[in-house]
């Protein structure tokens, strides 16, 4: 980076929040996905004004700017692929106001999502989006990736809750979108455009999010299936029965085996699938609904159904699901985690396609995920030092995306496009669709300053490259 640019930046940001040394730069060269890109400088801004100044300078000197939350992105979102500067947003964490009357929270982007959950609950309210990274990830990162988790089925994703933003635009102006009202139809809905834009259209410096009343009670049960296809039918019959569970999670046989060998907890090794179903709401209503759901599972061929009677039993059921991630990382050092999503009715078909891909390439592929909303997580466990296998993984990943899109689904249900899925954008949206998006990006960010190298593929890039 030019001396002049650095000099200008140092006029805006004090030295103890601007890092040029190699160690600190390497510390912001990664996220939870792949790839390592060394930024030229790391800056920790403290407020919107500083960010605005920095972005203006970046436009003058043509330096890429990469906003970063806690770096838990699984799609390469905050990676500084074109060098430049990383803006570590984690120091912007002083505001977390719960407005009970209006059922809102006003938050700084660096606030950890779990803290919002906690504060909302203390006020008898509820912020539903709950990615499993919520103890670590920032609300800013959640917003820009439009994150969600098991509760997405009933409560939707982050975008359903964001009603207002303060944003530094790619050219350095500070704007507000939306506001404090739940209803708002004034002009284009820029809030929604920015949420999920993966840090390419603006830097969020404050967010107003909607809260809802906390459900009074919840109940959970687990069902084992000897045939995967039966579990698929159970899912569709529950969802068409008029009951909307707050979570409907699936683990396949490979996951079950992984968990059992990691921490034996009495899971059925012969079962092809386990479903975990949770229902929340009024205690009397859920009492009836849970029994109905359990019956539906039995009718579709569940070999075993157990409704949790105590909180402890409920935790035991969930712990199996929570052990999946750690368990499968024991199977190999490299984990390629996908989140291809299909319409609910296509879950059985998608599972079948994934089975075929596993056999075709002979890969260690396990599937779990938020089956209720069709958001499956096929995970391939491998070792990135094994180049031949990695080449197979690249092909398998492409086929997974093809399958999802052929079945009417999407590339990403919650992890975002980032660097990893950009080559497939045209497959889902078509050339014109991608071009419309590009036009928006070009209009907002004429100098291509903000998070370049994400979402849109480089010229000629047609599939993911995991090893070179």
């Amino acid at each position, binding site marked *: 980076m030019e001396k002049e640019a650095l000099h200008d930046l140092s006029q805006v940001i004090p030295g103890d929040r601007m890092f040029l040394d*190699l*160690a600190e730069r390497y510390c912001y060269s990664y996220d*939870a996905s792949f790839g390592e890109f060394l930024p030229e400088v790391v800056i920790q801004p403290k407020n919107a004004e500083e960010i605005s100044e920095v972005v203006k300078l970046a436009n003058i000197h043509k330096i890429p700017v990469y906003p970063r939350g806690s*770096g*838990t992105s699984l799609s390469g979102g905050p990676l500084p692929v074109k060098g430049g500067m990383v803006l570590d947003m984690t120091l912007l964490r002083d505001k977390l106001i719960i407005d009970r009357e209006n059922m809102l929270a006003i938050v700084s982007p660096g606030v950890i999502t779990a803290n919002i959950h906690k504060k909302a609950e203390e006020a008898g309210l509820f912020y539903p989006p709950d990615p499993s990274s919520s103890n670590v*990830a920032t609300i800013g990162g959640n917003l820009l990736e439009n994150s969600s988790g098991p509760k997405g089925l009933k409560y939707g994703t982050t975008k359903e809750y964001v009603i207002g933003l303060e944003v530094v635009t790619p050219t350095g102006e500070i704007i507000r979108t939306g506001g404090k009202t739940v209803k708002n139809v004034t002009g284009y809905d820029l809030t929604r455009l920015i949420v999920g834009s993966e840090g390419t259209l603006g830097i969020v410096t404050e967010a107003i999010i909607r809260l809802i009343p906390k459900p009074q009670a919840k109940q959970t049960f687990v069902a084992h299936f000897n045939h995967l296809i039966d579990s698929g039918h159970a899912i569709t019959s529950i969802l068409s029965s008029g009951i909307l569970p707050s979570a409907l999670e699936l683990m396949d046989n490979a996951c079950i085996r992984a968990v059992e060998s990691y921490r034996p907890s009495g899971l059925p090794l012969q079962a092809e699938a386990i479903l975990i179903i949770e229902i929340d709401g009024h205690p009397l209503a859920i009492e009836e609904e849970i029994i109905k759901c359990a019956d539906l599972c039995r009718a579709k061929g569940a070999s075993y159904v157990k409704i949790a009677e105590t909180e402890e039993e409920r935790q035991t059921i969930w712990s199996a699901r929570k052990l999946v*991630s750690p368990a499968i990382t024991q199977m190999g050092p490299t984990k390629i985690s996908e989140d291809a999503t299909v319409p609910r009715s296509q879950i059985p078909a998608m599972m079948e396609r994934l089975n075929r891909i596993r056999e075709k390439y002979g890969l260690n592929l396990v599937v779990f995920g938020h089956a209720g909303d069709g958001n499956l997580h096929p995970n391939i466990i491998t070792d990135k030092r094994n180049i031949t296998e990695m080449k197979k993984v690249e092909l398998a990943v492409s086929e997974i995306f093809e399958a999802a899109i052929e079945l009417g689904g999407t590339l990403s249900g919650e992890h975002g496009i980032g660097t990893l899925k950009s080559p497939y954008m045209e497959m889902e949206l078509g050339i014109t669709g991608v071009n419309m998006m590009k036009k928006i990006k070009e209009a907002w960010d004429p100098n291509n300053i903000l998070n370049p190298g994400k979402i849109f593929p480089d010229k000629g890039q047609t599939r993911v490259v995991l090893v070179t």
Partner: protein
Amino acid sequence: MNETNAAVQNLYSDAYDWTNQCVKCGYCLPACPTYESMGVESASPRGRINLVKMAAEGKIDFQKDLSEPIDLCLGCRACETACPVGVPYGHILEAAKEAIENSAPTNQKTKMTKIKKLALVHLFPYPKRMNRIGSAVFLYQKTGLSKLIRTSNVLHKVSPALGHLEQALPAIESSSKRIRTGTIIPAKGETKLRVAFFAGCIMDSMMSRINRLTIELLTLVGCEVILPENQNCCGALHSHQGETIQAQALAKRNILAFMEADADVIVNNAGGCGASLLEYGHLLADDHEWAGTAREFSKKSKDISQILYQLGPLPYTEEWQGIVSYQDSCHLRNVQKVQKEPRLLLQSIPGISYVEMEGFDRCCASGGIYNLLHFDESMKILDEKMKNLKETKATTVVTVNPGCQMQMSIGIQREGATNQMKSMHLVEILAKACGLD
């Protein structure tokens, strides 16, 4: 091959595979006290692991880039308990420290601060010298010299770190009360267990009273206590500072001394020492001659709270007035995985009201000699801790490690709360409730 290349090679073979286990999920970030207080990724476990990886790949320099982030780690190992995939951070940290130490060009080795050098090389390994220091401090406290120094505040002017430490030193017993090694103390009543007591270097010299009370409590619950001769410092501070070879030598001397005693268990009363004893198996894993015995030794090592709880209940004679809170020793909690026994013991004291503080599992930033080497960083973390402690309204805060106990005393002084609150070792409060003194 020059020293740097050799260090890269060694680090690569020692720690590279471990660093590769890290999936960079960041689950360890909320557990890390230095990440919280410093707010930069290089002060987080994920950042440090990645830097070690970069160093092993030869991408960054040990001295210029790696040493500071590693040095600023407390070694509390809370990150390990948070990690879903079980990355062995403690091992990575030690390998890194060793590599940093070894990669320093010989003429630059003086970089090791004077305190460190003095303590590690010339003091802790020698029980006699430690005792002499203990006696000197005793004299110093008895003669009134300490009062003079305290009121004149001269030490604070020289070094705030030393000044604080001086004030936090416990009252030391005269050496005549100290129980000599080589002694066997019979159980009171029926002998249920034969235990060998690990006296520790700091515990033995500065806190001999706690050691004496430990032994009395053990005999009270039916232990025959052996104090093996020729035992010495556990070597924890040495491994934490990258002095692996010296740590190994100390470990071997201890193993010899204790295996000869042939006890059922080896008991210690200092979380940090206990953790290091528990890891002798790992420390000597590559030494064919010693690996087996080291593992056996480690298996026998237990914390005092585990034994007292196992053989309890204690024969209490006194009621305790007031609120008590407990600050976990990181190495007891995160490495030895002992957390319920000290709490249950405290709660069993008649009359006690026990209140858990928010963030009890967070390091107090004493971290071996971290508070001496990184005074400001340490105090930032300590001050956060004191806020939580004050919320409990406790009049006594209990710890199980000499470093933590002194650190809590420093915290109490900084709060100006010496009249309202004191810090005690678990053994002291239990002994008091049993009418021992």
